[in-house]
């Protein structure tokens, strides 16, 4: 920039001195004033806009309540219908429904300087009532005047919504409480968040006692189940039947429903009392079994009759020959063998029938499917139509599964009965009766049907060449009471029961059928490993079955007592007998301590074997008892057998089995 000349600078200074410089002016506040006014206007606009457009009513009042300024929202809160309500002075307190409220507010204002979120009802200019929230501040104007500044919000709608919400909540709550199920909310860690009335009733605890506690602790009987859920966090609905003596319900169905909302891992636990349903189901199963037994009875009776015929024939023959003195040793052995054979077969049949009528709780134990199949076929054999040929292909090795053999027999019998019917009575009238029943058992170590990932299964196939099942009803055959048979031929429970039993065995059952060609049922059961056979006890038995102990036999059946006495005497034992329990106890006490073993019958008149045992054990806690019974599954038998120093002897027994049992007991002297 060019430096101004000396002359130029002097001229500028001269002009400035005489007041004619570029910025020279007499004093004026006006430019400042304009600037300040503009700022004020902008500020005012800003606050005015907030004031005018606010949804909340804003006002200023004198300390006596006289309103001196208010915004449009305030006007509409106080006076909804007409704009020109206020032509003269008015006081804020004239709108409060509670006439003492204002004096209380004033006291608070004086004390604290402010009142916040005060909810009350106001009566509008035209009489309508509204809920409002009031916020007041005691303020001062710049000239020191005390003034009340307030914000009033119309919360009528909010109040209504809150009421509605709490009503809805109450409604939902009472729905949940009305449920007969136990309903419990749990969080992701299994801690209880809520519980319904039924849950409170059953546990005897209220919300405060259990919220925040682990569900597995509160229902410790089902603890394993909850812990399993918590560790897997299955997103599927899970359900289980759980029975426990200490649990609130004898039979319970527990379902855990993960809550789908909010990405939470919370869940609802539902516990239902299904004891009645379970018992009904058991009754149904029993009924079905009875029906099955009835169906089998005809055939069995026939067989029994044949065995009896054989035995009686042989006996009469022997008697006749003996009386006539023509009885040869040969003839005697031959007929005795005949009698023994017939009796053994009868005994086996009785055992099988007993199995069928056993109590319902699945009694899982190691079973060989081959043996099971043979037993069932033996039982079924006599009932089957003679025109049906059975083609049975068992597994090459022992086919072990963990099962209740009685229940599995029931399933197989059901299938055989169905197959029998399909190939006989259900055939159209013109067709000849008969066909082939194909059975096979084989192992599949790559079975895909299981949901838990196990693959090693035994597969049982039962295939008939009967009439088949139409596709349209194939899906329904497992439903209870579904049957196509005539009314007196089936209850419609067979396959349904079979389905339930197989499910309880963690297996699966499937049915394929082609009408006119036949039906194939496939059962898959998880395979278990073979274990070494128990052999320790048998080794104890001396093959020389001799003994010298004193034995007291208590049995009301003379035949049994005679047989047992003969067998044990022949082994060298000293025998005492009693035909009634009371008598037996007397003898025992009389001869004590010279009785080593008591052979005790379970079923006796006057005093049962159980009662006798109880008196004996009371007298001598070390008493050794062999309990003889035809039915190990009799609960009374089971109860006694589990006691100390009691050994079970199955009836009927023969020389070998009884002598072995006695020797075994005697050896542990």
């Amino acid at each position: 920039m060019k430096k101004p000349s000396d002359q130029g600078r002097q001229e500028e200074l001269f002009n400035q001195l005489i007041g004619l410089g570029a910025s020279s002016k007499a004093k004026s506040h006006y430019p400042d004033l304009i600037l300040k006014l503009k700022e004020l206007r902008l500020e005012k606009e800003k606050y005015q806009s907030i004031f005018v457009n606010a949804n909340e009513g804003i006002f200023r009042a004198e300390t006596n309540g006289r309103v001196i300024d208010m915004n449009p929202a305030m006007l509409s809160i106080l006076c909804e219908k007409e704009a020109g309500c206020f032509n003269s002075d008015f006081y804020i307190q004239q709108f409060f429904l509670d006439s003492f409220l204002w004096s209380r507010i004033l006291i608070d204002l004086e004390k604290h300087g402010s009142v916040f979120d005060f909810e009350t009802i106001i009566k509008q200019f035209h009489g309508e009532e509204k809920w409002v929230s009031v916020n007041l501040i005691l303020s001062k104007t710049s000239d020191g005047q005390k003034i009340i500044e307030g914000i009033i919000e119309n919360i009528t709608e909010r109040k209504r919504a809150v009421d509605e919400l709490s009503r809805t909540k109450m409604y939902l709550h009472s729905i949940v409480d009305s449920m007969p199920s136990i309903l419990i909310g749990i969080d992701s860690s299994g801690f209880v968040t809520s519980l319904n009335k039924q849950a409170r009733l059953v546990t005897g605890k209220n919300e405060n006692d259990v919220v925040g506690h682990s569900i597995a602790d509160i229902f410790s009987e089902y603890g394993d189940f909850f812990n399993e859920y918590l560790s897997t966090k299955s997103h599927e609905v899970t359900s289980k039947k759980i029975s426990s003596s200490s649990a609130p319900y004898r039979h319970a169905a527990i379902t855990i429903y993960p809550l789908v909302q909010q990405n939470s891992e919370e869940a609802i636990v539902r516990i239902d009392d299904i004891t009645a349903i379970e018992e009904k189901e058991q009754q149904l199963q029993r009924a079905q079994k009875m029906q099955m037994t009835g169906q089998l009875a005809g055939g069995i009776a026939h067989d029994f009759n044949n065995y009896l015929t054989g035995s009686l024939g042989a006996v009469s023959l022997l008697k006749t020959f003996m009386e006539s003195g023509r009885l040869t040793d040969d003839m005697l052995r031959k007929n005795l063998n005949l009698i023994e054979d017939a009796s053994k077969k009868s005994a086996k049949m009785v055992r099988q029938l007993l199995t069928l009528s056993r109590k319902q709780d699945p009694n899982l134990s190691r079973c060989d499917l081959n043996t099971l199949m043979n037993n069932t076929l033996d039982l079924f054999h006599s009932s089957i139509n003679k025109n049906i040929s059975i083609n049975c292909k068992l597994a090459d090795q022992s086919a072990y599964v963990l099962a209740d053999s009685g229940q599995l027999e029931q399933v197989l019998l059901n299938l055989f009965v169905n197959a029998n019917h399909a190939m006989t009575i259900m055939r159209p009238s013109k067709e000849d009766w008969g066909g082939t029943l194909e059975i096979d058992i084989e192992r599949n170590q790559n079975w895909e049907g299981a949901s838990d990932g196990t693959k090693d299964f035994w597969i049982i196939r039962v295939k008939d060449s009967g009439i088949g099942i139409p596709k349209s009803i194939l899906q329904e055959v497992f439903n209870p009471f579904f049957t196509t048979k005539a009314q007196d031929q089936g209850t419609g429970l067979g396959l349904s029961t079979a389905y339930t039993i197989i499910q309880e065995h963690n297996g699966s059952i499937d049915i394929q059928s082609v009408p006119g060609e036949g039906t194939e049922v496939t059962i898959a059961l998880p395979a278990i490993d073979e274990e070494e056979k128990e052999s320790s006890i048998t080794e104890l038995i001396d093959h020389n079955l001799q003994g010298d102990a004193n034995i007291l036999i208590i049995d009301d059946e003379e035949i049994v007592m005679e047989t047992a006495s003969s067998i044990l005497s022949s082994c060298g034992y000293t025998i005492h007998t009693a035909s009634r329990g009371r008598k037996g106890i007397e003898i025992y006490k009389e001869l004590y301590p010279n009785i080593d073993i008591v052979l005790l019958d379970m079923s006796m008149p006057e005093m049962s074997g159980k009662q006798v045992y109880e008196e004996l054990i009371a007298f001598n806690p070390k008493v050794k008892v062999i309990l003889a019974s035809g039915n190990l599954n009799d609960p009374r038998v089971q109860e006694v057998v589990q006691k100390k120093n009691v050994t079970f002897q199955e009836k009927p027994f023969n020389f070998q089995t009884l002598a072995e049992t006695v020797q075994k007991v005697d050896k542990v002297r």
Partner: protein
Amino acid sequence: MESNFSSLRKFVSPEIIFGGGARKLAGQYVAHFGASKTLVVSDPGVAEVGWLQEILQSLEQEQIACAVYTDVSPNPRETQVMAAARMYLDEGCDTIVAIGGGSAMDLAKAAAIVVTNGGHILDYEGVDKIRQAVPPLVLIPTTAGSSADVSQFTIITNQSERVKIAIISKTIVPDVALIDPETTLTMSPKLTAETGIDALVHAIEAFVSTAHSPLTDIHAIEAIKLINEHLPSAVQNPSDYLIRENIMRASMEAGLAFSNAILGAVHALAHSLGGYMDLPHGECNAILLENVIDFNFETAADRYKIIAEAMKIPVKGMTSNEVKKAMMAHIIELKKMVGISHKLERVGVTKSDIPALAGKASKDACLLTNPRKADRRDIEVLYEEAL
């Protein structure tokens, strides 16, 4: 005339109330501004004679609160200016009233600059440096001479540099001047003489200024006439109110003239001298006056002739030089009559001080409107002649 930069002229004046008792309107006029609290600046001498108390009462009557600042020395210092400004801000004042001589009024004007413009008072040295309008200023002079109550000047002493600085701006022309001759009744003869000669210098310099105009000429000539006629009797009869009134009016008119037409070499030299020696302004002006007239005369002989006529010097038939001689003699005689006959030596100035004094004076803005251009050497000579 050596320079004539512009033919435009401006005239700025406060709202003036002149006359006996004008000071009593202080409360009313401050109230006109809507004031609630005012800073009252005064000096201990004025407070002592009771003028300050009167003003405070007048303000009280109008229910205007006051903060009183009285720490004012004869040449107001920048530290005093800043202290007064701080008081104004701390006390929450909105107006300023000053009652006193030139010192109190200059200090009030300077403090006013700081309270609205911020910064330090020395930042505003020079012409037209003030951006923001200052608070309302009501000034009540108690001496006849300084004319700070009507002028656009304020002169502050920078103590550390031992110089006086001039702040010049139309925005510090006061809002109201309450010019009350009664306040001058208490002036000592010496002060009356010095301030009276000061006013005369103001009028003469404004009249011969290159920035003079008919608007200023009337006031300058009227002031010269009044002082010439009444100053000696004012010194002799201090309690004669009518004489006091004439001198007061002279001072006011001289002030209006010089505030708008600016000054000349006397003031340039006097400013330098006053700052250097801490001497009263009026005394400096009085000592230097006739030497500057001698120096300037030929350049503005016509203007000086009119001044001579106003002093009732019979100029008819005189040559220019004769007029000059007669005028200088008249002024020396006038000064003698009021008791000022001493030269610079008497106030302690020596020859060795002159280069420094001239150096500062040569940079003074007042030289710009002096009718004759003066360089540094000219100024040294002027100081030497006045020794």
